[in-house]
Every structure is written in C-alpha cells, then in structure tokens.
C-alpha cells in the first residue's frame, strides 16, 4: 500500500469493522446474555421448583421414558436435574444422520413436564452461534464474521499509537465525532484483552467447522477417531445385532460417582437394548479452565468398566482451555459478572464503531445522504436497537402467551423476530436522530415493563428479583444511550469538515 502500514491498517479496521459489525453486535449481545443462560431459563419456566432426586433414580426415569418413546435409537442421552435446571432432559438419535430429538421430563414423576413450553435461555444461546438458521449456515456466517472481527481487532490495535493514553481520553465536548471516537476507544481498549480472548476462543469453538483440514489430512476426515485419540470421548462400540438385557442404570451410575468427585451431569446409553450396549457417565468439569468432562464408560450388560477419561495431553488441554475460557463455566458470581460487563463493553465498542462510521460521513447541511449512508444508518438502528427490542418481546411473549398454546416455544421465537423486524423497518423508514430517541425509549419501556408483567402473571414473589433489577438496568442503559446518540447525530451536522479531518488522522 502506498501510504504506510498504519494508514492501511486504519482503512482495514474501518471497513472490516463495518462489514462484520452488525452480525458481531448480535453475537456479542446474545453471547453476553448467555453468561446467565440458566438464570434466564429458570425465569422463563416459573412453574419449576428445585427438585431433590438422586442422580441414579433420575437416570432410570429418563431411560424408562426413552425405552417407550425411542426404543430403536442408536444413542440415548439423559441430562440429570441440577439446581439451576430442575428437569430431566432426554435426547436421542434415531440414526447418526438424524437430527437430535428431545423432551423435558418432570424430575419427580419422569413424565413430560407441565411447565410452559419454551426454549428458555437456549434460544439466545443457539442464536449466539447459529443465528437460528440452518445450523451449518449459521455457524459459517458467525465463524466468518468472527474471523473478520479478529482482523478488525488486530488492525485496530495497530491503528492506535496512543493505546495507554486512550484509557483516560474522553473528549465529549470537543466534537460529536470526537466523542464517539473516544467512546469507541475507551470501551474497546479498556476490555481489549477480553475482546481478543473472546473472539479467538469463539473461533476455536467452531474450529473444526471452519478449519477441518487437520483432521482431513491426519485422520482422513474421521473426526470421531480424532476425539477418541485425543481422549475426549470413549471409543464407539459397534452394535452386536442381538438383543440383551442391560443391568439397571442406578447401580452403575453410583459406581461411577464413587470414582469421580464432580457432580454427575449426563448419562449416555449407546446402542440401547443391544448385547454390545455401553453406558457412559459424564461428569461436570473439575475446577480449572479446561472444558473437559471426566467420563466412565461401562459395558451395559456385564457392568465392566471399558474406559475412563480424565486428563488430557498438553495441546488437547490447551484446546479445551480455549473452549473453557469462552464459556466461563469456571467463573464464580463475581468473575461471571465481570465477564458480563466485558461482554457489554464489547457490544458497546461495536455499536459505537458502527455509529462512528455513519457520524463521520454525515452529509453537509442541505445535502441528502447517499444510498450507502442511508443503508448503514438503517442497519445500525435496526441492529443496535432492533435486537434489544426483539429480546424484550421474546421475554414478554414468555409471560403473556397462554401456557397451553400449541407450538408455544415457536411463538416465542416468532415474537422475537416479528418485533425485531418491525423495529428494523421503522429504522429504515426514518433513519434519523429522532428515531434513535423514540426507538430507544420504546426499547427501554419494554424492558421496564418486564418486572411488572412478571409480577402480574406469576406467583413467585421475590424469587426473580435479580432478573428484574437487571431488566431495569438494561432499560435505563438503552434509554439514556439512545437519547445521547440522537443528540449527537443532530449536533453533528455543522461540523463536517473538521471531523472528516480527524477521522483521516485517527
């Protein structure tokens, strides 16, 4: 490039940040919410109370349901009730190609739960990495956008000559654009280690989708064999093809629990009913960064232990630590709160960056904005405020839709996309400063209404007080943010020439 390294990186930062900004804003917001996925799920199923059922008993209840409803499956998965998820989750695969199927059972009775049908926090979690699209398409879009974001982060760091001074620089009054640039820098630089970590580790969670070529060359594409050799899953035993009576699950589960100190998370039955069936007890991750689950595998018929998985080799340990860092399962309440705040700062960095692009290119007074600018303004409004409006509508639908409604979980998702789509249309119709103010107010009011609607439609008293407080805080943040933004977008009009120069220099 003709103009030196830093300028070319500034150009790269501006444009890579713009094209990836909208998708990545959605990924950051829903990912940040996912730090509290179990809390969201509990709030969305207000009928559920904590249940105290022994793990072995719960495993047998799940297996009993599967024996009736999925006798021909190749694998059963029974996730055991935990304090933050008081349900038995049963999942099964009818074949390796078939999509996974699932049901939620009452922990006490083993019958399908009577709690309202909802995806709970899993809806936002799945959106975070699949955008609620066809899984592979969604993962590729998210993965490719994350790679572009990594490029934007690296080029953004190069662009800054004064990275330390930017900690303390916030020239709100100098000019509208300076203010936005400083807000972008403060939120970006302050949590920079988090942004780099979360982006790289996020890419690693999709590593074998995005970069399957190591397994392709060294394993001839046999991904299962890789996981077996890496010590992350027990070897698959082919079915014998003749039926045999398996031992009861509870004693096997109890034997596994005597070996491992972590709580039991899931019981897997491979080839159920077959003479070569195996039972795998999967435990929660031990303390530490790595995302690895200790496992004990039994022969289902004889009860003999066939595999024990625990420690990993260095590279596999590093790899799973990347996943662990991303998911932050190791984090206690304080660290989780910090991760949440960092996630909010990441979302704010992206949002301010997107707005900065449009503020820096506002037309001179009296000139109409061009097509590109109108498009970016509309997408900014539709994303930065449209997504929160969608999430608020999703939560409201959870409280307001009749509990017995057919396909209820799908209606909740429908409310999310309908509200978001409507907000985006409004954003495109009138992409002005005033629309930021109005839509921000609407978004704030929607979140503010949640504690009230929750109190009127459920009888849980103060059980969800933290959730309610979070909703009020989000409402306040959205409202004040949108008002500030609308002021700047208006003020800005008179200062085109100077701000364009500052951008070129920045």
């Amino acid at each position, binding site marked *: *490039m003709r103009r030196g390294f830093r300028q070319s990186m500034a150009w790269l930062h501006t444009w890579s940040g713009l094209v990836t900004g909208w998708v990545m804003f959605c990924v950051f917001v829903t990912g940040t919410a996912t730090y509290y996925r179990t809390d969201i799920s509990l709030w969305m199923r207000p009928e559920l109370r904590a249940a105290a059922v022994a793990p072995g008993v719960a495993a047998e209840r799940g297996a009993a349901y599967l024996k009736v409803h999925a006798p021909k499956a190749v694998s059963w998965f029974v996730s055991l009730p935990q304090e933050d998820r008081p349900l038995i989750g049963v999942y099964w695969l009818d074949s390796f190609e078939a999509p996974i199927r699932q049901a939620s059972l009452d922990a006490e009775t083993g019958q399908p739960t009577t709690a309202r049908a909802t995806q709970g926090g899993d809806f936002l979690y799945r959106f975070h990495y699949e955008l609620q699209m066809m899984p592979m398409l969604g993962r590729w879009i998210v993965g490719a956008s994350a790679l572009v974001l*990594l490029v934007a982060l690296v080029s953004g760091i190069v662009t800054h000559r004064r990275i330390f001074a930017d900690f303390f620089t916030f020239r709100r009054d100098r000019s509208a654009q300076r203010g936005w640039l400083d807000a972008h820098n403060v939120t970006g630089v302050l949590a920079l280690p988090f942004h780099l970590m979360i982006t790289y580790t996020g890419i*690693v969670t999709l590593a074998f989708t995005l*970069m399957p070529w190591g397994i392709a060359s*060294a394993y001839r594409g046999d991904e299962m064999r890789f996981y077996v050799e890496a*010590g992350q899953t027990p070897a698959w035993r082919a079915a014998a093809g003749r039926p045999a009576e398996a031992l009861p699950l509870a004693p096997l589960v109890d034997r596994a629990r005597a070996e491992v100190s972590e709580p039991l998370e899931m019981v897997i039955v491979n080839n159920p009913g077959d003479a070569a069936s195996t039972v795998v007890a999967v435990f929660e991750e031990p303390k530490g960064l790595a995302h690895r689950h200790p496992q004990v595998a039994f022969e289902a018929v004889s009860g003999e232990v066939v595999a024990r998985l625990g420690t990993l080799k260095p590279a596999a340990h*590093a790899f799973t630590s990347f996943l662990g860092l991303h998911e932050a399962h190791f984090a206690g309440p304080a660290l989780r709160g910090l991760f949440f705040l960092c996630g909010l700062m990441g979302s704010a960095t992206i949002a301010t960056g997107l707005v900065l692009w449009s503020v820096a290119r506002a037309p001179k007074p009296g000139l109409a904005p061009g097509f590109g600018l109108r498009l970016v303004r509309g997408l900014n409004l539709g994303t930065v405020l449209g997504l929160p409006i969608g999430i608020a509508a999703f939560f409201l639908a959870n409280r307001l839709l009749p509990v017995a409604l057919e396909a209820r979980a799908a209606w909740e998702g429908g409310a999310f996309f309908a509200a978001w789509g409507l907000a985006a249309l409004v954003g495109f119709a009138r992409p002005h400063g005033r629309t930021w103010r109005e839509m921000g107010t609407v978004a704030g009011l929607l979140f503010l209404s949640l504690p009230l609607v929750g109190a009127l439609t459920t009888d849980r008293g103060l059980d969800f007080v933290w959730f309610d407080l979070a909703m009020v805080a989000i409402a306040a943040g959205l409202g004040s943010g949108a008002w500030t933004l609308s002021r700047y977008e208006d003020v800005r009009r008179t200062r085109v020439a100077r701000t364009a120069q500052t951008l070129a220099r920045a």
Partner: protein
Amino acid sequence: MPDEAALRNPGRGLGWRVRAAVAGRVVLATFGAYGVAALSTAFLSLVLPMVRSEAVATATLLSFAIMVGAVVWVFAARTLARAALGLAVPAALLAGGLWLALALVDTAPPA
C-alpha cells in the same frame, strides 16, 4: 488503496482502477489467506513431532492466527501483485510439503 480524499468521500473520486484493486485485495484476503491457513493446518497436522491428535489440535489452534497474519499482509503490501506473490510462495511451499507428507506419513486407521 484509496487516498485520504476518497476515504472522506466514499463513492466519489474512486476510479475503477482503485475499486478493482480493493476488490482484488478483498478476494485475495478471503480465499488466499484461508488457503494458506488451510494448507498450513493440513501440513502441520502431519509433520509436527507429537502424537497425531496433539498435532491436529496445535495446528488447528495456530491456523486462525496464521490466517489473520495473512490478511494483514494482503492489505499492508504495497501492490496487489506483491500481496499475491507473498501468499503464493508460502502456499506453493506448503502444498509441496503436504504432498510429500501425505505420501510419507502413515494415516491409515489401525487395523
């Protein structure tokens, strides 16, 4: 790459030459950088001196840093031709190495 005037007024003052050069770099950064990263992953997975599963994990973890480095190179190089050459040489070396490694390293599943 666009000069500062073009940066201030996107869509104005950009000749087709500049546009084509930018488009060329974007295409090169997308497919060229991914290609180099993919070749390095496949190659390193076979030749790194460690157990096969460890080599795959190491090579895959590295691949995304390699890709970002390649993208930065594509946009930092003085001309599009230099950028392309800077990717083509390592890609050719890696492809050659991969071809040799595939011939020499035993990847058959154990009997």
